[in-house]
């Protein structure tokens, strides 16, 4: 069962990475280079959490609950700076920073929701 959940979650991340990379290419073709760069930010977030998840699941003797606890911890600690950066962006009306940090945090939320839905399902 644990193997299934791990595989499912990695599959979701891989599909998301591929979709985001495809979207980047589409935006470039559509002469929307800046938006393509912003889409790349999204791809990076998926890749970061894919690596984090793989590192956690490679540790021996971890139960489903241990994986959940460790991964949720990472979902809290890694974006701490993103939130600070978003606040300072808003304070100084730095629209590019606001947009980038919002994309990162929205992608993170999507990853968290998918992870929880998958982990809490039977």
């Amino acid at each position, binding site marked *: 069962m644990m193997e299934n959940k791990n595989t499912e979650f990695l599959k979701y991340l891989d599909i998301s990475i591929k979709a985001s990379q495809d979207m980047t290419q589409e935006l470039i073709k559509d002469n929307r280079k800046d938006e393509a760069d912003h889409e790349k930010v999204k791809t990076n977030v998926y890749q970061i959490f894919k690596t984090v998840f793989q590192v956690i699941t490679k540790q021996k003797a971890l139960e489903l609950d241990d994986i959940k606890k460790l991964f949720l911890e990472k979902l809290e600690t890694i974006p701490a700076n993103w939130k600070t950066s978003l606040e300072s962006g808003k304070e100084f009306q*730095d629209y590019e920073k606001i*947009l980038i940090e*919002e994309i990162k945090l929205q992608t993170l939320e999507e990853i968290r929701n998918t992870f929880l839905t998958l982990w809490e399902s039977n």
Partner: protein
Amino acid sequence: MTEAEAIKLFKCLADKSRMKILKSLIVEDMYVERLAERLNLTPATISFHLKKLEDAGAVTSYKDQYYMMYSLCKDIFITNILDIIKEETPDAKEQEERENNYRKKVINAFFEYGRLKSIPAQRKKERIILEEIAKAFENGKEYSEREINIIIADFHDDFCTLRRDMISEGLLERTGNIYKLK
């Protein structure tokens, strides 16, 4: 329009979403949310593009009740492209423009929201940073060491190094315990 301004404008226009924003604004002035709805983009993306267009001089904004409205700067689009190409930039002006661009680049790399991220190792870059900090001092005003430290500490915690470097670079002068801009 200077050459640098023209390049900035052309670069800014070479984007489909920004073109669509301009096409909407040519019809009427609009606010971010309305543009977002019309163009099916997020308000944050629209704000990002509007900022670029505003910096390039293509749009301008004004407050209307609760909304920040954006309008097209028609004058800039009436300018003949041939006139822009023909415009001659004197060597001195071109050099000044290059220096200003370099200066801006260094300032953007080392400052974030008015705070110095780190002290540059290269003397040329540090000089630019120190000149930027020196703008916080009033010309002719005399400062105590404590006052100087407080002002510099607003930029970076290592105020001692920066204060000493400002003296050695000839930006500040010290007589006894009194400091002032040179």
